[in-house]
């Protein structure tokens, strides 16, 4: 079996975080709320981790909550701000978790244009709107709902600053090569009410792992620093792929514009190409990519993000570019891709 070049979203845990975790789990872990020496050390580390999150995510100490189940944050962050006379406005390209929360309350889906932007409704102070700071499939930033009169829930990213006005925000540590099973939920709105059954003032069920919280902070610091260091290189690789697709392959629908999108994600759809076949063939040639096409989805439905933007849903390839990808790797990949597409389209 030859080596595989991965252009997939599932990034390995950042090495610095992995090193810390190995050590933490090997030594066992103390409860930071107790008063042993080891517990004090853990409490200190946890506090430092909170500082890192606050600084990088642009939130305050008292706003931060950790979640062992990141997806639960959509329910907590949205439903906690909804009252009986609220309407939830959400984007057609939001994650399925948002659609799931919306299905239980009065809501309205905001259609998007081909650039992924929605028209911001006026709303009332009771209403809530979602703002996705970056779409996870396309890398396209969402519309900042500046003129909205009501509350704002953000599916946030450490690479985009929070807008001035927001009510609740959710991050998934996987978006910065942090550990699986860690969400950060920040609540700024004083009117937020815990939508879960609860009998104390806790915002979350408290089911998070302390070692993961600390490892997540280590990964976050490294991710942001490395992203800033390598952004121009990744942007150049992304630009190279886009140019190649247009000039050397053709009949391709590329999501978004590199001027506005984040450079580490790239989604494109190839006309008359069966994504399943293409991805299998790429796999055999040693390349792993993702796809939003129906034939690749568990429910056999095309990507609702591509469909909502009016982009071609078949023949879709999604690539994640990282600092350790080389230009040579990308060149080789493009040459293999071109040959395969020529063969498939014949």
């Amino acid at each position, binding site marked *: 079996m030859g080596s595989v070049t991965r252009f997939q979203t599932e990034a390995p845990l950042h090495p610095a975080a992995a090193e810390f975790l190995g050590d933490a789990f090997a030594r066992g872990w103390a409860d930071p709320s107790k008063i042993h020496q080891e517990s004090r050390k853990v409490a200190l580390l946890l506090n430092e981790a909170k500082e890192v999150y606050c600084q990088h995510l642009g939130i305050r100490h008292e706003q931060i909550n950790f979640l062992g189940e990141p997806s639960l944050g959509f329910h907590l962050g949205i439903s906690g701000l909804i009252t009986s006379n609220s309407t939830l406005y959400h984007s057609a390209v939001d994650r399925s978790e948002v659609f799931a929360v919306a299905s239980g309350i009065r809501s309205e889906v905001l259609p998007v244009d081909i650039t992924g932007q929605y028209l911001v409704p006026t709303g009332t102070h009771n209403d809530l709107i979602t703002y996705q700071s970056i779409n996870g499939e396309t890398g396209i930033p969402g519309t900042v709902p500046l003129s909205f009169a009501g509350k704002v829930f953000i599916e946030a990213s450490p690479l985009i600053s929070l807008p001035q006005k927001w009510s609740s925000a959710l991050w998934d540590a996987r978006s910065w090569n942090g550990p699986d099973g860690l969400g950060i939920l920040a609540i700024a709105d004083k009117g937020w009410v815990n939508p879960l059954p609860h009998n104390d003032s806790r915002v979350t069920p408290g089911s998070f792992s302390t070692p993961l919280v600390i490892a997540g902070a280590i990964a976050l610091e490294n991710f942001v620093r490395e992203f800033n260091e390598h952004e121009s290189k990744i942007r150049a690789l992304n630009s190279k792929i886009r140019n190649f697709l247009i000039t050397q392959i053709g009949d391709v629908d590329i999501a978004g514009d590199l001027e506005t999108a984040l450079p580490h994600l790239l989604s494109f759809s190839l006309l008359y190409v069966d994504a399943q076949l293409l991805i299998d063939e790429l796999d055999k040639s040693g390349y792993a990519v993702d796809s939003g096409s129906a034939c690749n989805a568990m429910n056999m439905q095309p990507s609702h993000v591509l*469909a909502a933007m*009016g982009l071609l849903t*078949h023949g879709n390839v999604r690539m994640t570019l990282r600092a350790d990808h080389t230009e040579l790797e990308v060149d080789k990949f493009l040459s293999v891709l071109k040959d395969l597409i020529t063969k498939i389209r014949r």
Partner: protein
Amino acid sequence: MELDCRGMRCPIPIIKLAQSLKTTSDVRLLSDDPATFPDLTAWARMTGNTFTQINNETFDVRRSD
């Protein structure tokens, strides 16, 4: 002409449609694949061809000449 692609999955209906349009300028496409409507929309934008949706499974497609 009528092109019956019911039961076929994407991208087959669009591939067959493009093949048919080489010999005729008007095609009534029958397709029950959920990707057909969004894909026809994108395909029309990319190729300059036009279509009208008649019902859930029926699309009248016209080649741009």
